Each structure stands twice: as structure tokens, then as C-alpha cells.
């Protein structure tokens, strides 16, 4: 079946200001091929099914995911749900209905609707209704069965519905539709070739698709459906297929530990071990094309910077000078790494040209400089330095060589990261005994707390800049947490044993 959705540019009937900003260009429909998936973000998909998969069986992944899902919030209440209410942005009211299941097993292998719902919830942009509480029973799983007026009465504006059908051989057909309840149901695009009188602008189906996936891709498929929904309703790409990298530290006998470089879905599901070592692993950083990770390993007893190509599973030694080799950060064009070396004095920031190996020192003086982060235009770097006596955040203009102090309050400001739009910088700010994530707007110069009274570390932006991931100490365990910039949604990612530190979001 071909996608029935056509590009559209009329959202004027929706009163939410979030929707009004949508441009037709952003809504360009990209058809998925009927036999598989032609994803928009090819970089991510390319290595998702590449050899990265560990020796662990797929069953185990599913089991882990299912386990994780049992802890996921049912939107209104859950143990791990730290939802705050100080958000001011209007949320779009949406319901994700349970997908119909057609198969020999009693239960579907995965509750796709739960994953989609959770994704949308985490973005902080949607008010998710509990479909169980509605009067419409049985729940519709075809657009034709929807009573638009009934659902509108629930205060809803859009519905996501779909079905999952087993096709044998670990293969499933997934179908979904996103329906605008404020359109006229009678305007659904005709399935026949007779398109006379059909005006796509009036089509209540905003997005819809049918595709076939293997068991292992099911949960990726759910994230991709969430991306479609986000794209249609918000007007910018969803980030639900993005990945995070982090370091997992597990305590072994005595004081020995196992350090693992991990890659997982942004919600912490499907964690994959890239490599493990009994010696420290630090500072994972994604290349802009999301195919390579730079990181620091102490495996020889001293730190060295490596890159690991996730597609070809090849490792490359980048720097192993005397002293510190640390905190790699890719330039936006992917051609350079900003790195920290102490080969000639204290820690200094250098630029390494990956094509010719040329090393250029960028910061000077007696102080320790570390944790560089590039501005998206590549024209400047923010970093931590103790040049004023305490660690503070500075910005280096690469053309003028001018260094400006950005953090103006406190005696401990560390770990800066530039936002994808280049307008702000997040960092860790110590106040009393707390280490909180703060955001500084570089235009207004205003600083704002994203977290309050936490033990936070290593903040990193989501690809769309709407959220920040960081590590936080909870009951003696380092966990990963997400927070939206509006502060209206905050959630701990699922974690079993071990500490999860230094997250980086692709």
C-alpha cells in the first residue's frame, strides 16, 4: 500500500501556536519503501543493523527492553517519573491507542504504542491522554472506525493508531496512522484510483504507513513512528531514533572495575557494549555523521585518545602524548578534533586535523584547560579553565583568539556543552553541596537552572536541542537523566547495576 499522506501546508484550523509555525517545507513527506525502510537519517540506521550487535542474543535484548518497559511511566504516574509542572509551553493533546495485534501468540512481541507514547512524553511537547479512560469502546484501530467528535470531546487534537501483524519467520507488518481530529472524517483520501474531488489539505490523516520489519527492528520501528508523529505535529524532525553513548562502570571484586563504552537508544533501551576494559574508559564523543566515537582509554596504563568506527568496527589511535590525552570533541565538519594534552605543561586545548595529523595549540598559559565543546558554526570553543583560580567556563573565538569568561557566578563551573543552535551553553554549576545543570543564553547573558539540588555531571544536548542528557547521583548510583529545556519533563533512564557516566547524545 502506498502512503496516502500528501504534503500539506494548512494547519490553520489547529489553534495551538506550536502548530502554526509549521512550514510546508518541513512537512515534506518522505515515502518509506514498501518492502523495508527508507529512513531519513541514514547514518543512524546504517549502523543500527551493522555488526555492532554484540554476541548477546536478540532474545536478551528484547527481554531487557521488556523489562525496561515495565518500568516506563504510563504517562500519568510512575516510579521513575519526575515530571515537574513548571513548564509553560502549551502541549499538544494526543492519544496513542494500543496497536491491534494479529498473531498466533496471545500478546504482541512488543507494545509499540507504549514506546511511541513514551517517546512523545519525553519530548515534553505533548499532553498524552490515557486511552483506557475514554468512552469509545472498543478502541478503533482503523481510521474509518474513529468517532471524531467523541475523541474531540476528550480534549484531544490528534490520535495515533495502528496494528501489528505477525507474518511468520520473525517478520511483522506494522501499520500506523496519525489522525487530525479537527478535520472532516469524510475527507479521508480514497483508496481507489478515483481521486476526483479529493483535496489533500482536508485529509484528516496526517501521516500513515505500512511496512515490514524483523523482530529486532520492531522497537526501532516504534521510535520511527514517533519521529513521524513529532515531525507532523511539531514541524521539526523527531529525535527518537538518536543514540546515546556513555561509560558503564561496574565494580568487580575489591576495588577492580570493568569499564564499558556503551551505545544505546536515547531512552536507554537496547544498550550495546562497544568495548570493555579493566582500565578506565572516558569521554565518549560522537562524530557529526554519528558513525564514529572518539573516546579516551587507559588500557595501556596511561590515557590515549582513540576513535572507533561503529560501522567497520575499526579503532584508530589519535593521540598518546606524555601526560593527559583527554576530552576529545569533534568539530562540526567532522574534520578536526579538539583534544586536551598536557605534554608541554598543564592541560591545554589543541586542535588535531584528522586528515593530516597536524596539531595546533589553541589555549596557552599556566592554567589547566579542559572539556572543549565547539560552537555549531565551528568559529569558537567553550571550555573549562582554572585560569582565574577556580574552574570557570570560557569561550575562545578561534579567529580573534580572544577568550571571554561566560560563567559569572560561583566557584565551580565545569563541563560546558554548546546547544545545536549555538544560542546557549549548558554546564554544571556548584551551589553549596549541589552540582546542577544550568543553561546560559549567550545573547541575553541570562543563566537559568535546569535542575535543582542534584549531583549532576556531564550535560549533553539532544540533536534537536530540546533536551539535555546528564549523569546524576541517585542513592549512590550514577544514572543517566533527561530533562527538557522547558524543565517540564525530567526522567531517569532505566538502569540495573553499575554507574553510567559521561553521556553523549548523537
Amino acid at each position, binding site marked *: 500500500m502506498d502512503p496516502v499522506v500528501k504534503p500539506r501546508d494548512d494547519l490553520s484550523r489547529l489553534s495551538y501556536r506550536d502548530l502554526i509555525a509549521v512550514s510546508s517545507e518541513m512537512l515534506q513527506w518522505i515515502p518509506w519503501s514498501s518492502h523495508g525502510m527508507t529512513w531519513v537519517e541514514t547514518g543512524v540506521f546504517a549502523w543500527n543493523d551493522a555488526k555492532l550487535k554484540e554476541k548477546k542474543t536478540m532474545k536478551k535484548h528484547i527481554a531487557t527492553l521488556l523489562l525496561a518497559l515495565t518500568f516506563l511511566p504510563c504517562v500519568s504516574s510512575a516510579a521513575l517519573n519526575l515530571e515537574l509542572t513548571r513548564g509553560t509551553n502549551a502541549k499538544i493533546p494526543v492519544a496513542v491507542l494500543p496497536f491491534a495485534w494479529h498473531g498466533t501468540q496471545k500478546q504482541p512481541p512488543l507494545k509499540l504504542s507504549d514506546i511511541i507514547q513514551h517517546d512523545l512524553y519525553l519530548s515534553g511537547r505533548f499532553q498524552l491522554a490515557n486511552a483506557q479512560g475514554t468512552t469509545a469502546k472498543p478502541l478503533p484501530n482503523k481510521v474509518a472506525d474513529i468517532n471524531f467528535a467523541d475523541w474531540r470531546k476528550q480534549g484531544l487534537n490528534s490520535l495515533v493508531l495502528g496494528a501489528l501483524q505477525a507474518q511468520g519467520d520473525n517478520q511483522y507488518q506494522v501499520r500506523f496512522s496519525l489522525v487530525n481530529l479537527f478535520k472532516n472524517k469524510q475527507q479521508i483520501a480514497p483508496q481507489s484510483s478515483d481521486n476526483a474531488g479529493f483535496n489533500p489539505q482536508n485529509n484528516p490523516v496526517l501521516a500513515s504507513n505500512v511496512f515490514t520489519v524483523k523482530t529486532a527492528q520492531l522497537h526501532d520501528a516504534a521510535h520511527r513512528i514517533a519521529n513521524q508523529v513529532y515531525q507532523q505535529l511539531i514541524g521539526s524532525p523527531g529525535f527518537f531514533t538518536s543514540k546515546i553513548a556513555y561509560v558503564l562502570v561496574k565494580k568487580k571484586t575489591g576495588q577492580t*572495575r570493568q569499564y564499558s563504552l556503551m551505545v544505546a537508544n536515547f531512552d536507554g533501551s537496547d544498550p550495546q557494549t562497544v568495548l570493555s576494559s579493566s582500565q*578506565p574508559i*572516558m569521554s565518549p564523543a560522537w562524530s557529526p555523521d554519528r558513525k564514529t566515537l572518539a573516546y579516551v582509554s587507559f588500557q595501556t596504563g596511561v590515557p590515549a585518545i582513540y576513535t572507533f568506527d561503529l560501522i567497520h568496527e575499526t579503532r584508530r589511535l589519535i593521540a598518546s602524548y606524555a601526560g593527559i590525552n583527554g576530552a576529545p570533541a569533534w568539530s562540526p565538519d567532522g574534520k578536526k578534533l579538539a583534544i586536551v594534552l598536557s605534554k608541554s605543561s*598543564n*592541560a591545554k586545548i589543541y586542535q588535531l586535523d584528522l586528515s593530516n595529523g597536524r596539531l595546533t595549540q589553541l589555549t596557552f598559559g599556566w592554567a589547566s584547560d579542559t572539556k572543549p565543546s565547539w560552537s555549531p558554526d565551528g568559529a569558537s570553543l567553550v571550555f573549562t579553565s582554572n585560569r582565574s583560580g577556580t*574552574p570557570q567556563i570560557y569561550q575562545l573565538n578561534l579567529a580573534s583568539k580572544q577568550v571571554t569568561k561566560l560563567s559569572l557566578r560561583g566557584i565551580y563551573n565545569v*563541563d560546558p556543552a554548546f546547544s545545536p543552535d549555538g544560542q546557549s551553553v549548558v554546564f554544571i554549576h556548584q551551589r553549596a553541596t549541589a552540582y546542577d545543570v544550568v543553561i546560559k543564553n549567550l545573547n541575553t547573558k541570562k543563566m537559568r537552572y535546569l535542575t535543582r539540588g542534584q*549531583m549532576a555531571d556531564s550535560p549533553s544536548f539532544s540533536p534537536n536541542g530540546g533536551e539535555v542528557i546528564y549523569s546524576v547521583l541517585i542513592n*549512590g548510583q550514577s544514572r543517566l537523566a533527561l530533562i527538557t529545556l522547558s524543565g517540564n519533563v525530567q526522567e531517569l533512564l532505566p538502569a540495573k547495576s553499575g554507574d553510567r557516566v559521561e553521556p553523549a547524545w548523537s
Partner: protein
Amino acid sequence: MKHYVLLGVVVVVLSACAKRPTAPVQGVGQVVTSSVMPLTSNGKFALGPHQGLLNTRQFYFRCNSTLLPKAAYAALDAHAQYLKADPSARIELQGFTSAKGSHEYNITVGERRANSVKDFMALHGARVEQLTTVSYGEEQAYPLSERKDAQDCRVDLIYTAA
């Protein structure tokens, strides 16, 4: 801060001139810092001399400081004399921090601690090529919940050749 370290070091060097021993010290066995634990001859401290002051291999700092504590001077001086007397001996100075604060910044804190020990030893007669440093920062620190921060704010002195 480094200036203070140097100043401190210079003062110590001057005061140590008159009584500097010329051979590896046969120490008197006093405890140099309050939290020094007796070392067994296994693990990473196995190599090298263990008599008296030379058995002191861990040097504790105040946790918000990279300034070499005075309590470390005597034992570090003894190690420096040992290195001076045995040019083939090599040591690695490993800097550590507590788990508090930034992983990346703590790497630089651990290095400044290791460097303050290195500078002291170089000024006390060890050759620079005998001394290497590595900072582990907080990567091997106790969890903060165990409240053992003080044990993590230190430099370990490891003989890699003796």
C-alpha cells in the same frame, strides 16, 4: 596556586640543604601522614625500596587542594634521594581525586597533584627523566556514598624500575 607550591618547595629546599643525605635513607620509620597505611609487598607498590620512609608511597592532599601537604615532604625527599643515588630507578606518580565534580576537570586536578609531587622531587635531586605522571582523576574513586573522599585525594608513588 602553583606559585605557592613553588614557594613552598623553595623554602623546603633551602631548609633541607644542610642535612641532605647522600645515600638512600635508612628511615626511622615514623608515619609521615596520619592516614598512611602499611604497605605489603604485593600489588602496584611491590617494586622498589621499602625501608622506613621509603615505604610511604601514598601522599594525601586536602580534597579541595593540589598544594603538596607538608606532611609529605620528608618521605618524598627520601624517595628523591633514592632516585638520585640510583639513576636507573624510575617512578610513576599517579594522581587521584574524589568522585566529587567533573570527570574531565578532575583529570586535571589529579595531574596537578602528581605534578606538585614531581616538582618537589625534581627540586630534591631526582632527574626529570626518572619521573613520569599519570592522572586517573576520579576514575577509580570510591563512590561518594561511602564517604571515603579523603582517601581518594592523593598521589601514589610507584616504582617502575628500581
